[in-house]
């Protein structure tokens, strides 16, 4: 197969956003049927590189790129994603683009529906063709089969848990029969481990059928398990390109970050004496993450972890307590009852939330970073407002806002051109860090952080977790951290609750062996019950 030109070659690609250079002289080749792992720190330029390949309009709107792209030896430069699609390139983006009121089949075949002719077609053209539902179902099922999951083709997207949405989107790309190259930008970030497993398996199968794949992920184990070749980007440059067989996780991690990674040792479990937040009989109606009946107590100054498999309801807990999804039950904070179903009440009572869904509720994408970081604090607590003329007019204290923003940009190592850059222009992982800064700045009494390291690179993970611990130790913030990564929970939390089928399966001290938590996730209690 290697007789002639490779399937894809990108040669000397460079890109800058108004003088801020994010890709420098990137070149690589990809053979037919090969799986290429693309890794790098947050903001290294992975997504940008793929956007260039796929002809996304933001690239042209921001001044285009330099360098050449060859597909099967022929030079190409796509002006729109549609041209890339025509040439057999498919891309699944970091965020979803599905129609909630359409079924899986309708979404998979969106704008590529099967049709039948009728007399009107003669008169008014192809768009008057009838849909051929039977054939559409058949094609959708075939595409779903290629992904290798159980997915009902007639199910509405709005009824699906997040993993199924991701699979629907992948199926949509696979349905295109001319597909030669599939770009997957962090497809596993929203998947539970078991689901990710299925996806990886079907990627293997696709590559054996001759489809090439570019796979972006921050989970290095996945990268090692599945790819043929690994490309490491750092600050927009390729710093290592190696066949997967000749490297290993720690080598990749170090090359990515450019320094040796220290492993932090956790402290012993602390003891607390005062219950601060008490949740009883909580239910939350969050589609795909239903909470049925959850009760737990969190101590003042504790870091409390909530884990569990995807879809079991762990995400519903903070979303319900913060009033983002309808719910009921009783929440008592520092002896006072807190009303549910109102984000404002939750915020006013001193709770803050960093959502797992940074696209929807996290950021004002069109606004600058300092504004994003300070917005909630200003709204809820009147922070950063200078009174003039007694208390008649309140003036925004720009200087203080900017200084605070600068502080967080340094502390969390947020990669940006400065505090006045728009949130939209940050890489996925750096947007996530802004969300954290936004919550820290209100100095909440209780901070909920949901999936704080999702989409964050190996190096920055430690920074994020350390910032959480620092906040807890120095400011005494009570933290409730929800994560699907057990190891992460075990490294920072004092106690961890495991959620199963919308209920708490057990609460254990974080020092207990990982296997005990694993058993709880599977619905079997470990031999000697939990603390509490």
């Amino acid at each position, binding site marked *: 197969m290697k007789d002639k030109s490779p399937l894809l070659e990108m040669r000397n690609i460079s890109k800058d956003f108004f003088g801020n250079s994010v890709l420098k002289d990137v070149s690589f080749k990809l053979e037919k049927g090969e799986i290429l792992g693309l890794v790098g720190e947050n903001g290294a330029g992975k997504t940008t590189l793929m956007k260039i390949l796929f002809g996304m309009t933001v690239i042209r709107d921001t001044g285009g790129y330099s360098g050449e792209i060859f597909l099967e030896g022929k030079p190409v430069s796509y002006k729109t994603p549609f041209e890339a699609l025509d040439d057999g390139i498919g891309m699944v983006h970091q965020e979803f*683009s599905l*129609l909630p009121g359409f079924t899986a089949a309708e979404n998979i075949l969106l*704008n590529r529906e099967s049709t039948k002719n009728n007399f009107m077609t003669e008169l008014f053209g192809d768009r008057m063709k009838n849909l051929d539902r039977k054939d559409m179902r058949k094609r959708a099922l075939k595409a779903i089969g290629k992904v290798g999951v159980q997915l009902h083709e007639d199910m509405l997207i709005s009824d699906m848990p997040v993993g199924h949405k991701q699979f629907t989107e992948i199926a949509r790309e696979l349905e295109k029969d001319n597909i030669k190259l599939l770009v997957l930008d962090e497809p596993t970030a929203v998947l539970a481990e078991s689901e990710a497993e299925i996806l990886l398996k079907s990627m293997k199968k696709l590559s054996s059928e001759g489809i090439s794949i570019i796979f972006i992920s921050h989970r290095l184990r996945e990268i090692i398990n599945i790819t043929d070749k690994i490309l490491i980007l750092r600050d927009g440059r390729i710093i290592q390109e190696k066949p997967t067989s000749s490297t290993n996780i720690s080598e990749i991690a170090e090359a990515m970050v450019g320094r040796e990674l220290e492993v932090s040792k956790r402290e012993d479990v602390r003891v607390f004496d005062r219950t601060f937040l008490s949740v009883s009989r909580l239910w939350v109606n969050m589609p795909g993450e239903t909470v049925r009946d959850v009760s737990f107590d969190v101590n003042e100054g504790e870091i409390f972890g909530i884990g569990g498999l995807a879809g079991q309801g762990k995400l519903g807990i903070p979303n319900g307590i913060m009033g983002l999804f309808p719910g009921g039950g009783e929440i008592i904070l520092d002896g006072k009852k807190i009303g549910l179903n109102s984000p404002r009440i939750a915020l006013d009572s001193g709770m803050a939330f960093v959502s797992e869904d940074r696209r929807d509720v996290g950021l004002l994408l069109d606004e600058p970073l300092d504004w994003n970081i300070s917005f909630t604090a200003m709204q809820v607590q009147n922070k950063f407002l200078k009174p003039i003329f007694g208390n008649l007019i309140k003036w925004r204290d720009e200087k203080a806002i900017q200084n605070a923003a600068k502080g967080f940009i340094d502390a969390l190592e947020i990669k940006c051109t400065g505090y006045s850059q728009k949130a939209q222009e940050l890489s996925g992982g750096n947007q996530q860090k802004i969300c954290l800064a936004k919550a820290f700045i209100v100095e909440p009494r209780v901070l909920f952080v949901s999936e704080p390291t999702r989409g964050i690179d190996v190096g920055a993970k430690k920074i994020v977790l350390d910032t959480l611990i620092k906040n807890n130790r120095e400011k005494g913030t009570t933290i409730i951290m929800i994560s699907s990564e057990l190891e992460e929970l075990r490294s920072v939390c004092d106690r961890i609750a495991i959620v199963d089928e919308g209920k708490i399966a057990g609460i254990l001290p974080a020092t207990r062996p990982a296997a005990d938590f694993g058993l709880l996730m599977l619905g079997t209690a470990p031999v000697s019950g939990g603390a509490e």
Partner: protein
Amino acid sequence: MLKNDKDNVIKFLETNLVPILFVIIIAFALPLSGFSVRYLFNEIIVRLVRNLFLVLALLLPIMAGMGLNFGMVLGAMAGEIGLIFITDWNITGLHGMFLAMILSIPLSILLGWMCGKILNRAKGREMVTSYILGFFMNGVYQLVVLYGMGSVIPIASDSIVLSRGYGIRNAVNLTGIRQSLDKLLPLKIGTTLIPVATFALIAVLCVFIIWFRRTKLGQDMRAIGQDMAVAEASGIDVARTRIISIIISTVLAGFGMVIYLQNIGTMNTYNSHEQVGMFSIAALLVGGASVNRAKIGNAILGVVLFHLMFVISPMAGKNLIGQAQLGEYFRVFVSYGVISISLVLYAIRKQRDKARAGIALADAQEVRD
């Protein structure tokens, strides 16, 4: 299970609040009016013949997520202009009527295209924008009909031109085509005359709408109705598709206006179209439609309830407080009222729907105790 049934009933009541309200009012007013069943049946048939086609013209833009679209007023104007010409040329009967329809098509397309273009710049505010646009075009229409016709645009017939020599009279007599379609295939049931041909035409439109939903274009409209950005990203030409949905709506409204006026027999040159827009939208809402969801059934039910109300309210008003005038005020008041209530209800319902599933969950928890 029982609880579930109760929930379903509540949900049904809620989504159909407006139609239910109308049924209740009618149930009260009906005996007061003292009309006979035969008379009312007759009236309902007449109203359906007159209005249903117009109301059905509203359905496609709703499907494309453009809400209740006052752009149909533009189509109605086009229909009227067609009628002015055939009256002037003295072409009568079915020929005249169909010629008026054909004449309205290019004008409807032009106006619809323009309206669509403007609405594409006002995404998310289509209803208000089209309402204002209707007002504005009404001015243009008046300019053309009141000053242009008979001066720039040749109109020969004295009977429709104002005595000053240009401009169309306030009322145009359509005796030439009066009920030419209705009387084509008459069917008598008792004393009621059923205009079979008109109903057949309406039925054709219904079939067209059902069929249209299953076409590629219909599917694209549904997709756009849900999320314009996603539809755009999949390669659907959103702007164009939205314009097409408005054009189909204005063309149908033009036909509807011709059917409406051939039944009445006289044309109120400067007022008919405005009224028709508002009454059609109100009727559709009374039938239980909402800003983002409307079916053929809503249109039929709406026309029956809305107009039944107007038939009986003057009499009921007279018999109750001795004033028939009340009915007329009532009509305008109710139309605006219904439109506003429906918009408010739509907003409330959207929130409520979110909460409902949650309440079910809470119930499930209680049962286990």
